[in-house]
């Protein structure tokens, strides 16, 4: 047996890979087996093994949430917030990278960049706390500035207004992530052939013309790759933390997303099987989105991302 012999010779390597295999089996694959719970009438008191002994009910829970009005509301909110975060976030990061690239003064560039990605390292809890403060009706800076500029008559309780929620989440996400996301674009821009710019200068092409005809085409494949990955992540882009921490009963019609819906079904209502069936659909849709976006990208840049 060649394989066994070789495995024995590499026994140290085999020993060293065992922890990750065991860990993956427990924390990644066992939960996948746990998807079974979505098809069963499961009693939370029965523990993990109870998944297997519980009575099989087929697609009962899938039918249940597909006929639940709240499901469609949360799906809409999830797609809307995810879409806004991805599209506007991508635009913002690229624009920021392009602007930075126009700056010749190195120290200025460095300082702005350092500031810009500090928020990336704050937890969403801290971000939520910061937004509670700046949006507060009680002397929050946003209301203060807007009333002074006479744009609003009296302070607005932004976080209790359903209609503002999507914008707030988008702004919060951009505040947190734009600087960080721009790093890759900045690196891609610095990789564009400088000879092209020199040639363009000889031809008298304007600054904007250079960005439009040289820089952007030069970083096209980076943009496409990151966009594909982002689309695969559409359902998770507006995460649990954001909606759970910044949403409240008054904004629920707009703030409730799939992650919170899954959580609520599980731990507030105790409907484990229902919750698992929603997670499962979420995972499946995400995979389909990723595969679809990957296919599209192969048309756009002639190479598959994954």
């Amino acid at each position: 047996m060649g394989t066994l012999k070789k495995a024995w010779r590499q026994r140290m390597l085999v020993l060293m890979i065992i922890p990750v295999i065991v860990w993956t089996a427990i924390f990644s694959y066992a939960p996948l087996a746990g998807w079974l719970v979505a098809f069963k009438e499961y009693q939370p008191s029965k523990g993990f093994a109870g998944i297997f002994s519980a009575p099989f009910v087929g697609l009962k829970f899938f039918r249940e949430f597909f006929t639940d009005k709240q499901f469609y509301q949360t799906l809409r909110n999830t797609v809307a917030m995810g879409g806004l975060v991805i599209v506007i976030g991508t635009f913002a990061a690229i624009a920021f990278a392009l602007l930075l690239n126009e700056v010749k003064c190195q120290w200025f560039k460095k300082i702005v960049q350092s500031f810009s990605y500090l928020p990336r390292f704050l937890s969403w809890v801290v971000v939520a706390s910061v937004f509670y403060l700046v949006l507060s009706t009680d002397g929050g800076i946003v209301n203060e500035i807007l009333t002074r500029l006479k744009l609003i008559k009296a302070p607005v309780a932004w976080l209790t207004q359903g209609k503002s929620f999507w914008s707030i989440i988008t702004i919060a996400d951009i505040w947190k992530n734009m600087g960080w996301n721009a790093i890759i674009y900045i690196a891609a821009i610095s990789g564009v052939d400088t000879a092209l710019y020199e040639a363009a200068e000889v031809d008298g092409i304007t600054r904007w013309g250079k960005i439009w005809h040289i820089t952007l085409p030069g970083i096209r494949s980076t943009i496409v790759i990151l966009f594909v990955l982002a689309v695969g992540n559409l359902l998770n882009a507006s995460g649990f933390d954001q909606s759970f921490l910044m949403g409240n009963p008054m904004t629920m019609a707009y703030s409730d997303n799939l992650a919170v819906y899954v959580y609520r079904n599980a731990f507030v209502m105790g409907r484990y099987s229902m919750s698992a069936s929603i997670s499962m659909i979420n995972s499946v849709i995400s995979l389909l989105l990723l595969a679809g976006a990957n296919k599209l990208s192969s048309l756009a840049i002639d190479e598959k991302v994954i």
Partner: protein
Amino acid sequence: MAIPAITKGGLIIKTKRKPSEIAADVAIYAILATIGLLALYPLWNVAVLALNDPLDTLRGGIYLWPRMFTLNNLSLILRQEQLATAFKNSVLRTGIGVASALFFNTMAAYVISRKDFIFRKAAQRLLAVTMYVNGGLIPYYLVVKSVGLRNNFLVYILPMMFNAFYILIIRSFMDELPDSLTEAARIDGAGDFTVYWKVVLPLSAPVLATIGLFIAVDQWSQWFDSFVFTTDKSLTTLQYELVKVLNQSTSSVSDINSLRQRLQSGGQINIVYTPQSIRMAITIISTIPIVLVYPFIQKYFIKGVMIGAVKG
């Protein structure tokens, strides 16, 4: 007046720039300066309020600088028992979490960076799957519960022990190391663990720094595991305490109330607080560690995102 900046021969001559060019430059610098300030200001605002007298804050108008400077808000938080426990747990989980995850992730990465390893492909596939699908909240919860991690400090460590994406980044770094170094050690009779521990790990210092910092931020920012998997108050974390304060859960506030009564009846200082001053103080305390190390670690983060981008 437009003066050609470049002669036909390609020789670049410095000349006066067009007014429109200068205007564009001014606009660009102004926009970028605004972005930089907007990124920083909200945190500054929190810090200023955390350092201002709570009653004075109620009068409003504090945006740039504390009007009545005080450290009482912060010291009140640190003297509160549950928050002190939370701080200790956050530090512990970050420290232990980083050390253990670094060890195990790099070890796995080392094995799959060995091109002759017999189960290399299989191990890689096994890991790749975990990056694209996960069981979701309930199946995961049931697993974690059934392996006895509820109300167990290890729930902060074990589930974050491995990360397929980090393993991938570390592996791609190790792939770049010259084979000659490990070969030399092997000829000297070193086993694989020795090669990993004595040769590869020290050479991987830059990627260790990067990934270690990623893990530290992951650990420090986590609150959901405390929320779902612990009911034991002694296992709480700083981020989770902040969540409770944000959700207007009164537990922390009433604890502080009782502390205040104890101190006052003992004839000590008269402590004043408002829900806002408490929130700001906890926010700042849970942010300070990151802001303090930030200037030193930035360059590693950038390196990390670049390796991740190339390979990811």
